């Protein structure tokens, strides 16, 4: 009996998936990646559009995947949360609920978050509160605006995105809230602001300059050095906070630990999306949302050009894919992104559509290789990196990975070749040091032997000639 229902479940899941318009295999996007010199080279995509879900949504702003595969969409324009089953059938909607016996309703909710124990948190933006629901979508509690002496007088609380960590601490961000991420403790009491965004130093200098030449009235109208606000937020399993930062921040993406310390690792350049000087149809990348998966990879979706940038834990750019447009698989106004069942789901605000992107072979290989590398299994990682480099000969991290394994095996000369291809000067230097030592050791022995022999020869010759002189001298004396 149980078995039968399981089969039925699978069947219905299959049917439901069939209802999703499947997409052909051709990649509708121009993927590329940047090399060391920030030139854009063509590259395979790590994810490709797989299917699309379209529903009766109005300006939806956020989506989040639950631990059991359910998908929660903040249907902002309709003042509700739409919950989808793993098979994309509608599980239910949530707009009205009983709050302590009184009927209550959501108003313009712009953020959803689901915890590992299936608790739903909604940023009920227009009501200025966070509302928590249990797994049956029953009301649990509402958390209002923070109350504290440390708040600015003009501070207005506009909760638009929310995230909750394992210990139940609640993080809230919203427009104009540039004091930092609002942090509530598990009881819903305001704790502090964390991770205050740094202001781009250039903005500050130009600000100072304009201040100098402004009249007092003009100056009064201008706010004091406005640090940047946070636009979006996500958490990983360890409770690290991944953020999308506002426009005048010195970096568009950020990673903070639970104490608000910036822990973003960066390679040669910060994760900024497109490099501004590359002229890829106009200007910096402006991100809408960020999502992090269990392997430490994080992906951010960008509004203007509809691109998704995937980085690894070290902040190395792994893949750039997708584009903006009206066609299937393209985005008009992507608003939210999340990992779901090893796929990516992207919510399009303008089209009211959720696009499912499946991982390609290339994307899977990269994740495997990075994972093995991080575990210190350089040799196994190198095997996978070799496959990656066959799919994308321009991918520098692959060569670095192969080089690392070669260096571990002691083949410094070959490792140097790969580190050069990877443009990894630090590792190249390490390999070169080893290689130079080997060469010197070989040559040094021979050179020293020759030198010693020569010294011995000179010594013997001197002794001999001194002896001969003495003998001659004695002969001379004897003759005399």
């Amino acid at each position, binding site marked *: 009996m149980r078995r039968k229902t399981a089969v039925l479940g699978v069947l219905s899941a299959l049917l439901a998936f069939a209802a999703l318009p499947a997409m052909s295999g051709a990649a509708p996007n121009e993927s590329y990646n940047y090399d060391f010199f920030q030139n854009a080279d063509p590259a395979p995509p790590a994810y490709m559009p797989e299917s699309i879900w379209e529903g009766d949504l109005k300006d939806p702003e956020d989506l989040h995947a639950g631990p059991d595969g359910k998908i929660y969409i903040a249907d902002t324009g309709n003042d509700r949360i739409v919950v989808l089953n793993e098979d994309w059938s509608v599980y239910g909607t949530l707009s009205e609920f009983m709050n302590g016996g009184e009927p209550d309703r959501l108003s313009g909710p712009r953020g959803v978050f689901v915890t590992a124990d299936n608790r739903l948190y909604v940023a009920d933006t227009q009501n200025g509160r966070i509302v928590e629901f249990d797994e049956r979508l029953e009301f649990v509690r509402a958390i209002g605006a923070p109350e504290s002496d440390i708040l600015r007088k003009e501070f207005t609380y506009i909760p638009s995105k929310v995230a909750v960590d394992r210990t139940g601490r609640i993080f809230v961000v919203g427009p104009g809230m540039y004091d930092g991420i609002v942090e509530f403790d598990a009881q819903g009491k305001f704790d502090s602001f964390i991770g205050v965004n740094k202001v781009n130093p250039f903005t500050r200098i130009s600000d100072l300059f304009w201040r100098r030449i402004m009249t007092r009235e003009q100056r009064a109208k201008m706010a004091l050095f406005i640090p940047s606000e946070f636009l979006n937020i996500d958490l990983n399993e360890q409770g690290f906070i991944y953020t999308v930062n506002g426009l005048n921040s010195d970096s568009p993406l950020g990673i903070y630990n639970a104490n608000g310390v910036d822990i973003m690792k960066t390679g040669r350049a910060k994760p900024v999306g497109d490099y501004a000087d590359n002229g890829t149809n106009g200007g910096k990348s402006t991100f809408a949302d960020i999502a992090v998966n269990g392997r430490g990879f994080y992906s951010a979706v960008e509004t203007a050009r509809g691109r998704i940038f995937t980085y690894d834990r070290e902040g190395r750019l792994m893949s750039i894919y997708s584009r903006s447009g009206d066609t299937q698989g393209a985005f008009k106004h992507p608003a939210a992104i999340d990992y779901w069942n090893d796929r990516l789901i992207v919510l399009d605000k303008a089209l009211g559509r959720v696009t499912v992107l499946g991982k390609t072979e290339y994307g899977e290989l990269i994740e495997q290789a990075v994972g093995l590398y991080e575990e210190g299994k350089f040799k196994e990682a190198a095997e996978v990196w070799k496959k990656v480099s066959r799919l994308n000969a321009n991918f520098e991290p692959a060569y670095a990975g192969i080089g690392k394994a070669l260096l571990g095996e002691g083949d410094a000369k070959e490792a140097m070749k790969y580190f050069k291809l990877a443009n990894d000067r630090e590792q190249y*230097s390490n390999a070169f040091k080893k290689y130079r030592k080997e060469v010197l050791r070989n040559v040094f022995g021979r050179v020293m032997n020759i030198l010693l022999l020569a010294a011995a020869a000179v010594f013997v010759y001197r002794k001999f000639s001194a002896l001969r002189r003495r003998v001659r001298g004695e002969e001379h004396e004897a003759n005399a």
Partner: protein
Amino acid sequence: MKRTLDQLAYALYIIRRPFDGFWNLKYDGRGGLAAALILIALLSFSFVFQRQATGFIFNYNEIDRLNVFQQLRYVLIPFVLFCVANWALTTLMDGEGKFKEIVVATAYATAPIPLVTIPVTIVSNFITLEEGALLYLFNQLAYFWFCWLLLVGNMTVHQYSMTKTVFTMLLTFVGMGVILFIGLLFFNLIEQVVSFAVTIYKELKFRL
């Protein structure tokens, strides 16, 4: 030919004994314009060589994309600008140097740069990242020595006191800026005038 080579070799003497050397350069004719131009060519070469042949560890340039003219821009334009600005200023400030003497003295002052950077560039192929500080040290020394020689050369050519030389040097840099500004302005305006004329011509052609 022999004479030019002798004059060229005199750069080595100037590096060691700048005061004496620049004096002889001016009054004893130990240097020459041909040798000076060779020194500038050598300097230009050392710039390109440094960009292309520095060891991989220290070379952050995209070496398969080279535009020699773009590289020479950093040598020839400052050199010409400095000579012109210096000459223009010192003629007003009782300097004794002729334009040719300024060119020669300036060119000889640059001699330490290729002399140091070329060997350092070669050495950079055989050292690791940690030992790199040495490279920067030597390069810095070369540039310091070049500045000192430029100062002494200018002082000798114009027969100035030290303070006056330093003062004229600073003014010269300002003058270089002014020339650059006027030059850009000039080119910009010419461009506007040309495009204006072209537009009128096109318009007439279209109407007639």
